């Protein structure tokens, strides 16, 4: 009976002791209060312009790496450019979310073709794509190019292939596009701007 009691005490003491030891600080140190590391440290900053609306806000694009050869620059963050006098660093919900546009799951990565009547895409090389498209264009142009209209006036136009242009392409791409398609004689052209 006495022994039992002692045993019982021993159990209790051990329990208490353990907890006391824990209380005296044998437990590992709690992590110190530390804020999240500033994630842009040493990121590469590039000035660009938001591609959405015509406020054309200045943006700062932060990418990983220092442009050294083997490190692929991945865009890690985009925020407003405070120097831009129009947006002064602010961005709207579209602009503030630009990173998700750049990294959209629906970004296209390689040329594809959907053959006539097919129900799936097929990956093709750029060479094949350019070849086939150019052949289509030349065939259509040669077949439908109008040198003179019915009044005998030189018109030199090709109306049977249409071109719709982006309003989000830079001026330089727009200029090269208009220059080349006009040289090809295209007149069925329009831009997103109208709508």
């Amino acid at each position: 009976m006495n022994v039992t009691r002692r045993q019982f005490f021993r159990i209790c003491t051990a329990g208490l002791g353990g907890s006391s030891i824990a209380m005296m600080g044998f437990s590992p140190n709690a992590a110190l209060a530390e804020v999240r590391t500033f994630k842009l440290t040493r990121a590469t900053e590039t000035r660009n312009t938001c591609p959405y609306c015509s406020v054309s806000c200045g943006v700062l694009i932060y990418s990983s790496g220092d442009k050294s050869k083997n490190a692929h620059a991945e865009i890690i963050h985009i925020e407003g450019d405070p120097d831009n006098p129009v947006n002064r660093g602010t961005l709207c919900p579209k602009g503030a979310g630009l990173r998700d546009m750049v990294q959209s799951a629906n970004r296209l990565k390689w040329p594809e073709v959907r053959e006539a009547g097919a129900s799936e895409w097929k990956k093709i090389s750029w060479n094949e794509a350019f070849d086939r498209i150019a052949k289509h264009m030349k065939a259509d142009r040669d077949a439908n190019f109008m040198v003179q209209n019915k009044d005998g006036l030189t018109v030199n136009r090709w109306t049977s292939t249409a071109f719709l242009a982006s309003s989000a392409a830079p001026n330089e791409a727009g200029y090269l596009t208009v220059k080349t398609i006009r040289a090809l004689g295209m007149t069925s052209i329009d831009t997103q701007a109208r709508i």
Partner: protein
Amino acid sequence: MIRDPKDLPRYNAAERANHWVTGICFILLALSGLAFFHPAFYPLVQLFGGGAWARIIHPYLGVILGIAFVVMFFRFWQLNLINDADREWLTRVGEMIEGNDHNMPEQGKYNAGQKMVFWSMAVCVSALVISGLLMWRAYFNFPVGIVRLAAVVHAAAATIMILVAIVHVYAAIWTKGTIRAMWYGTVTRAWAKQHHRAWYRQMTGK
């Protein structure tokens, strides 16, 4: 004199197991609960593998305790009904604490103090289980007002329960020959005659 065949059986094996399941759960719950209760006790979480583990384990232990206690409750509740002798016992509890039990009224299987412990535990466990469930965010999401009330009730009930448990444990330690009832299931006739004479008579027919 470890075991005497004439010792009186007080608890059968199932009852003892039931008690210890409840008891162990209670100890673990108290240790982990105290850790959340006051920063001074927080290091107790290390007994459970850290704060998150303590938080995870605590409510499950509570559920086990709740079930075990309900079983125990139905085993013993009839034996814990308060009678006139208990009332008299309670008025003279001071003598008992003084260690002077000669003039205490005859007690059945449980004296009034034990019955008070039983009922206090019953109330506290119910309060703890219900309030605990209300606070269990892993599964439930009650309106914050209810959760706030539950938190207070839980803390208060837990405090009372631990106090009662201290009394319970101490009484067992203080009253020599008691603890074996929960170890082996038997008590000596002398013990029974001394502390629970009515029960002694009932058991022995004397």
